[in-house]
């Protein structure tokens, strides 16, 4: 008699005895973890107030909204102009924020890298400050900068810059630490100073990595810059949240399509640039 595996019972017993280790359950650990995970999931759903009726009601609402979204429309010409301007603002925020962050993070990352730092104490402080800057969300930075320079896209630029100083500082210093020692030794052996060693021994090695990280963050910041307007820091997010709050679903749909198109164009350009400048840049990230 054959089972659905195509083996007879006898064959299966033989296989089981021969490959005992493959058939044996190495431990019950997996089951316990799965049970605990499911229990926590159930508790979480209950604790957060999940209920089937509310959920179905919400789905019905959502379906309604989606139906109301079509056909997408931009309202009148004035609002179309406003949206395009806001989208331009979004891209500008992302670009300037990323550039500012990279410009500030580059010198600091040499302080934070083990092989180029001037003192271990400075290195420690540089690394901890990067961690702190990264630990606070971009939206919180945006709220703080709005207090400083007022509502508008400039606050967004500064918010993206300050939170990315943390990310770039970490990534850049890791790239510097991973660089090859030999060119540095060569420069030093032929009489170069520390700065020469950095300029001619390290920078040429890490530049492609840094540029590709810069472009990658530019892509991801375009996405962040689309929501930063929700807290008043400029860009398309302000328009989008306004349209959602006033239930203008057709306009909401139009803005979302605009965002999707912009993000994919930026992704395309940045991927092209990345492969052109850095070759296959995924190697050292």
């Amino acid at each position, binding site marked *: 008699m054959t089972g659905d595996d195509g083996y007879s019972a006898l064959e299966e017993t033989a296989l089981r005895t021969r490959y005992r280790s493959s058939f044996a359950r190495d431990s019950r650990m997996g089951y316990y973890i799965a049970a605990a995970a499911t229990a926590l999931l159930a508790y979480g759903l209950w604790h957060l*107030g999940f209920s089937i009726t509310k959920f179905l009601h919400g789905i019905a609402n959502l379906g309604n909204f989606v139906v109301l979204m079509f056909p997408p429309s931009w309202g009148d010409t004035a609002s179309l102009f406003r949206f395009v301007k806001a989208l331009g603002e979004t891209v500008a925020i992302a670009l300037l924020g990323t550039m500012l962050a990279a410009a500030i993070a580059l010198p600091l990352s040499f302080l934070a890298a083990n092989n180029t730092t001037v003192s271990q104490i400075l290195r420690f402080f540089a690394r901890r400050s990067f961690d702190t800057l990264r630990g606070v969300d971009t939206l919180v930075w945006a709220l703080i900068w709005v207090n400083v320079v007022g509502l508008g896209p400039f606050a967004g630029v500064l918010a993206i810059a300050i939170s990315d100083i943390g990310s770039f500082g970490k990534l850049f210093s890791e790239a510097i630490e991973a660089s090859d020692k030999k060119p540095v030794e060569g420069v030093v052996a032929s009489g170069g100073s520390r700065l020469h060693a950095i300029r001619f021994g390290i920078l040429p090695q890490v530049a492609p990595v840094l540029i590709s990280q810069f472009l990658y963050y530019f892509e991801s910041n375009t996405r962040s810059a689309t929501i930063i307007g929700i807290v008043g820091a400029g860009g398309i997010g302000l328009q989008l949240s306004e349209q959602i709050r006033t239930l203008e679903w057709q306009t909401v749909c139009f803005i979302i399509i605009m965002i999707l198109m912009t993000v994919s164009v930026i992704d395309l350009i940045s991927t092209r640039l990345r492969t052109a400048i850095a070759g296959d840049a995924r190697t050292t990230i």
Partner: protein
Amino acid sequence: MRGPRSFSGIMTTATADSRKSIEALSSAYAAIVARKRKQFLRSGAVLAVVILVAGWMAEVDLALFFSNVHKFPNYIGRIFILDSGDLKGSLVVFDIPGWFWGVGKWLKLLADTLLIAYVATLIGAIFGFFACFFAAGNLGVSTPIRFAVRRYLEFCRTVPELVFALIFVLAFGLGPIAGVLAIIVHTTGALGKLFYEVLENIDQKPVEGLISSGASWTKTMRFAVLPQVLANFISYALLRFEINVRGASVMGFVGAGGIGQDLIEAIRKFYYPDVSAILLLIIATVAVIDLVTERIRHRFIAQGH
């Protein structure tokens, strides 16, 4: 036939030759350097124009910046100074109970935040898991299905979480469920993509082995594909959990639950010491979560290889 040249004759021709070749080399080098410099200047000019245009669009105002920049350190300083009670005006560290007066409430909200992140990561990972098998290019799924699943995942991860949250708050009401759903959608998109990229890099030999011994598609997936990718999948899901804890901590900004609602209230209503207290709690929680998940991830990666 010419007679043998004298030794000195050979030397002079050699030096003349080498001088000529050095001259050629150095002029070629100078040309390359000049070309590079020109290219550098040209791209610098383009960059400068781009920066100016972007600066104009983003309403960059350097005068305003320099006249107001002192407010930034002031703000950072001010959130560490008590604004009420007996010790009003002194540093927060002198009155820890007064600084963390709301710690019970905040810890509860933080627990909510973690639960939102956990539930959303788990459900999102499950959706991403089922989607990725239909999005990978090497598992014999038909092109139209693959195209549709990939575009769907792209949509899920490109629309920002907070936008989904804004819409879901209207559909499902204020509260953490809207936040959970928003993070689920985004996690599905992000993990789905990472998962199918892992799938596309698997070793095909076990797959061929199972297919040639007559196994069904599901069995091939279970016994040839899954063992190769599971460790990576779990590692990515844990990484996503870290990201989602951060994401869940700002969901409250749009009314979608978690610690964010108290944070934005503290910032908007200028409860300065509360801002620092809540931020410190969030940063500490995120750091602990990062540490723990990193440990677990390294264990899984070690097992996977």
